[in-house]
Structures are given as C-alpha cells and as structure tokens.
C-alpha cells in the first residue's frame, strides 16, 4: 500500500509521457489544436478583419483570446477521444489490474490535457506575434491570463472526461465539443456584441466565453479588468466543480 503511494509521481510520468506521444504522433490532433486555430486567426485578421469595426486599432489583439478558447475547446475533445479509446481497448483494465497508483490512469489524461493545451496556446501566441500581436501586459497580467486559461482548460477537461467515460460510441465521445468550439463565434470574441440583434446579443453577453474573452483581452491590452474578471473566474470555477462531480460519478460507475 505504502509502496504504491510512493510511486504516484513515477506512475503519473509514465501515463503523461504515454498520452503526450499520442498527441504528437497524431497529425489530426496537431492540425485541429494548432494549425486550424492559426488558420482561423489568419482568416479573421486578413479576410474578415478589415470589415469588422471593433473600436480598437489592432484586430490581431482583439481576436486572439477567442482563438485561444477555440484551440482549447478543440484540444479537450481529444482528451475525450483518448479516454474513450482506452476504455474500449481494455488498456484501462490492464492498468487497473496492475500494482500502480490507480488514480494516475485518469489523472494522466487530465494532466496531458493541461500540458498539450498549454503547448498549443504558446504556439498560437507565437504565431500571433509574427502577424502583429503586441501586448503591454506586465508579468502579473500574463500570470492572470495563464491562470484563467488553465482554469478554463481544466473545467472543459472534466467535461471531456464525462464524455470519454460515458459515451457509447466514438462519435458520442467527441460530439459534445462542437458546440463548445462554436460558442466563441456567438460572443465578443470576434465582433463587439453591440452589432448583434437583441436576442443574439442577450445570449452573447451572458455566456461564459464573452466574460472570459473580455477579461483576457483587458489583461493583455493593459486595460482595467473591473468586475469582469470575477465573472470569468466564477464561470470557470462553476463549470469546473459541476463537471468534476459528474466526471467522478461516471468514473465510479466504471471502476470497482
């Protein structure tokens, strides 16, 4: 028993390196979590951007937070995908019948989600820098942005865990992510919500993506964040707690 607790970190690193190999060996994953968001960014900046009046000079700066959220929403769908495959293939059961710290089987997927999303975020920010993204944010603001993005990733990761554990088919395991990927389009991520019809605007103003995007944008542009950041954090924490509870229920149903 003691021996197994002692091995938690070594078991965790085996699980992490395993799933990270899955990420890097899947062209499909790399395209969806890094190349597609960058392509979206280019599309918005160089095609639509000219026609969008945001009231700010630098549209690259304006749309970057939304692109980051799209990347995370795409990224976590692969967490559900990898988890579902593990459940199906029997490797989950193999791990669970071994003398390892059992919790690392699930937490390995969660940690992989955090690490791989962090990598794709960094790649996208580097690409944004190339096309003109500039930030006046100080270290503290950047840390706050990293904190919000980590919390957002973690919250959606637990949503993905629910899907990965309880889906009956592969399609079911990943389908939940499509609305999440779409959500930034009906928010303040790419156009100011003032330009939307009343009903759409009411939705856009009150959904989590708008709050999160506005908070990140303000932080990156060195503007005061006001109460918005608390609304953003409340959304992230709220989703995180609820998703975690349901994910644990789904996990207990699967594991003796």
């Amino acid at each position, binding site marked *: 028993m003691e021996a197994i607790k002692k091995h938690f970190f*070594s078991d965790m690193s085996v699980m992490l390196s395993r799933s990270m190999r899955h990420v890097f060996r899947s062209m499909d994953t790399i395209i969806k979590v890094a190349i597609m968001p960058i392509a979206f960014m280019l599309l918005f900046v160089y095609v639509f951007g000219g026609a969008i009046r945001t009231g700010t000079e630098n549209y690259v700066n304006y749309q970057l937070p939304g692109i980051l959220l799209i990347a995370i929403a795409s990224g976590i769908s692969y967490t559900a995908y990898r988890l579902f495959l593990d459940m199906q*293939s*029997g490797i989950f059961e193999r791990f669970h019948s071994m003398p390892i710290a059992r919790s690392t089987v699930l937490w390995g997927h969660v940690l992989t989600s955090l690490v791989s999303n962090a990598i794709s975020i960094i790649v996208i920010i580097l690409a944004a820098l190339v096309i003109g993204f500039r930030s006046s944010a100080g270290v503290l603001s950047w840390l706050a942005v990293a904190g919000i993005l980590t919390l957002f990733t973690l919250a959606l990761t637990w949503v993905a865990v629910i899907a990965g554990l309880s889906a009956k088919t592969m399609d079911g395991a990943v389908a939940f992510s499509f609305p999440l990927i779409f959500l930034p389009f009906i928010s303040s991520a790419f156009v100011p919500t003032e330009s939307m019809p009343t009903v759409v605007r009411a939705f856009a103003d009150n959904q989590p993506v708008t709050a999160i995007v506005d908070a990140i944008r303000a932080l990156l542009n060195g503007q005061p964040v006001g109460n918005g950041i608390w609304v953003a954090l409340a959304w992230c924490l709220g989703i995180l707690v609820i998703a975690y509870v349901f994910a644990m229920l789904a996990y207990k149903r699967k594991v003796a």
Partner: protein
Amino acid sequence: MAETAIQVRGLKKSFKTTEVLKGVDFDVEKGSIFALLGTNGAGKTTIVKILTTLLKKDSGTATVNGFDVESNPDNVRQSISLTGQFAAVDEILTGRENLIMIAKLRHLDNSRQVADDLLKRFGLSDAADRKVSGYSGGMRRRLDIAMSLVGNPQLIFLDEPTTGLDPEGRNEVWKTVKELAEGGTTVFLTTQYLEEAEQLADQIAILHKGRIIVSGTLAELKTLFPPAKVEYVEKQPTLEEIFLAIVGEKEEK
C-alpha cells in the same frame, strides 16, 4: 504461502436484475493450468474481473495468492497479471514502447532489458520499433501476453486468449501457455473451445448457468462418461491439419 493460488467460495454477482454468478466454488492449484469453460455469456469474464480486482462481488469469498480480493486488492495486483479478452495494447506506441511502459509501471530498474528479452522470446524483435497498429492479430496477442509477463507475476489470467486468432496464432498462444506452466507460473484460462481446455489444462471447470457444474482433471471428467468403446475408423486429415501442412507450420502435439 498456501498451495492454492486461487480459492473461490460461494461467489455471487448480479447485474441489475440478471444473476450472472449464483454461487461459484473452485480452487486453482499453484503452478497448474486451470481452464474455465463456458458458453458466451456464461459469466467467465465476470469471474476474471472479480479475481483481478476490476469488479466487486456481491457475496462469497475470493482469495488470490492468499490475499482477499476485496480487503487486499493491492497485494493481489502485485502478484497477478491480466490479459483481457481484447488485446490491451497501445496502438500508437511501438511494441518496444508498450513493454517498456509496463516495465516502468511495475517499477523495474532494467525496463529496456526486460523489453528486449520479451521481444526476442515472442519473436517480435523485428517488429519492435513499428507501431502496434500495423501488427497482425497474432502479433498483437503475442505482445499482449508478453506485456502480461513483465515482472514475472506468479499468476496469469488469460481471458479467451485465442478467440479471433487463426490456427497459427492459436498454436503460438498454446505453446506460450505451456511454457509458462513449465516455468512454474499458474495460468487461469477461460475459453469456449473444448479442444483448448483439452490441450492445455491440468484442471477444467465448466461454468453453466451461474454455477460450476463439473470440475476436475481431464481424466476425471472422462470417467463421468460411459467407458470408451474401441472402434476402428479410418483417420481422415482435418481441414485444419491440411491447412497447417500447406502453410508449413508444424503442429506441436
């Protein structure tokens, strides 16, 4: 330690309203090959899952290598290895990476060496650095069993190890199982093929409608039937023998 590797008494398990196991009793001797026979859906996999700590029983007792599966699951896991019904290998990793991963999870110091040895032993050295997704069914099963042997567990569970394999692949698995038993490992095998049990097992138990209806050695089971009459029949080669002769595989019988 006791001479019995597995002891099961009055084991019961229901799923919702279906009673799958209605009081199962059996013992498995250390170092023997034990075959659990039964039709599809008889509850063989349920028994394997309970014994490998993947599923909780409703009632009864089950001890593995002297440890209770419910109160001492960590000790049970320490001494067993499971090869499930579906090859539990990582498709994205190479054969070598799969073995090294398991060796690391078993906290062995020389994981690379362990992997090399098993690759050689299972004839996978040439395919060692290829992704498992490109392996044939037989190779996959061999890797699967090799992964179960990492760390030399005393007791190995093989849940329908030859289902879905071609005759060649099946013979390979049989050979491996025999070698394991010769090396002193206890093998718990489930199968729906009577011939498989006949070929391999020291002890056979037949699971039917949630209970073990017969158990014993093959010789003991044979005495349950009327004595054999001697008849002379011209022996025709079976299609399988013809197939194996043509593809040039020697039958090891």
